[in-house]
């Protein structure tokens, strides 16, 4: 799940970068930047969830 979280974060950023280079319309650019951030949010949630379980030695 940690690896998936990291990959989602990077994928979201790549969507933002690609949108910047490929899209000319302002509306489409905004939509794809927001979509990239939504993908990053999924990655962040995955990373947060994967660290919710506390290691035994810390209890």
């Amino acid at each position, binding site marked *: 799940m940690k690896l998936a979280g990291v990959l989602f974060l*990077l994928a979201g*950023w790549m969507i*933002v970068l690609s949108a910047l280079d490929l899209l000319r319309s*302002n509306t489409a650019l905004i939509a794809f930047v927001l979509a990239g*951030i939504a993908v990053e949010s999924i990655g962040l949630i995955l990373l947060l969830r994967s*660290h919710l379980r*506390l290691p035994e030695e*810390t209890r």
Partner: protein
Amino acid sequence: MIPVTVFAETPAGAICLFSLLLVPLAMAGLALIATGLGRSRSAAHAMLASLCAVAVASIVYVVCGFSWSGFAGGPAHVWLLRGKSWNWIAAQPFFLRGFVLDGSPASLAAVFGMFGAGLAAIIPLSATMDRWRLRAICASTALLAGCTYPIFAHWAWSGGWLAQLGVNYGLGQGLFDSGGAGTIQVVGGLTALSMVWILGPRRDKYSAEGMPTAIPGHSPVYVVFGCFLAWVGWLGLNSSGAILFQHILPGKVALIAVNTTLSAASAGMMALLITRIRFGRPDASITANGWVGGLVASSAATALLNPASSLIIGIIAGVLVTYTVDWFEMWLKVDDPGGAIPAHALAGIWGLLAAGVFARFPGQSSPDGQWLAQVIGVATLVGFVLPLTYSLNWLLDRVYPQRVESDGERQGMDLHELGAGAYPEFVVHSDEFIQR
């Protein structure tokens, strides 16, 4: 022969230089806050770790960090994509070879970058107190100052692709981050989050049912004095950054001082008010976190804000920090004793976004697309910097375990790593706050 007037001899340069020399006070302030919010048995370790982090960050930044971050107009690796230039990374020689520190804007930017690296390196320490080995702190700081920080610093400050979003894609004036709300604070805060995840919480912080236990800081006096020092340091940070990266006139320093102070004051008072209402008494540590959050949020574009905007930015930063400190601890099991993640990462992100909404250039309204440039900056921090710093520190942890042994944690970092306590004449209490 007529001597060439160097930037540092102009009024703007002189004020910039003076402001720059105040920045180490911000590091001292953050170090004191971290120490005060930690346990007494790890106090000396916390201060020494802060000093070591600043030392390692400064050395590594000069050795190789500046090579990647560079300065605006300096040599860089640039790709041409569909007719647009993407400036990815600087191409300066290592060890500042061939680079003259003569008071030019480029040389002051190098000093600013070095101090920024030190400041960013201190931030993770307050989130990872009582469990992070000193040698691991030095190694992790080297990764931060030599890799993560300079890359983003180049993109935001040195003519990198984020700074050129305005020129290339018509997004306002490119990313605003003159005082390092993103480049210093969010980078440091996300590194703190990565380290908290990698190290795990302190022993006995959570019960078997996952309920957090309050482990209060040992010295509110250090914490509040740290806030005063940080305030002075931030006045220097915001002033020098605005002169270097936004080319403001020296007279604007008065506005910067007012805006920085208003933002910190409103955030601190908001935190105090909320804790007074929620708990019946004001909480010194959360008020201090609110104060720092206000300073951080003011850093993105303080010279381009009016005082009313700064007040609003500070109020929202104070609310954000106060509630997220609890939220991280209670629901996300993030053990961050210094509140570094809310006060630096979240307040920094808020500062960047607020700059896109509130910043105004003289004689014109907010440039079109400025808010989108700020959003892309935040997306880059979360989508690139967080995975990078997490992966680098995870790899380091595989090679050299970064968490101290459980015996060391029980004994305290001072005795375990330094061989002596910070307060040898005091009676050392057991963990009276731990619920058994």
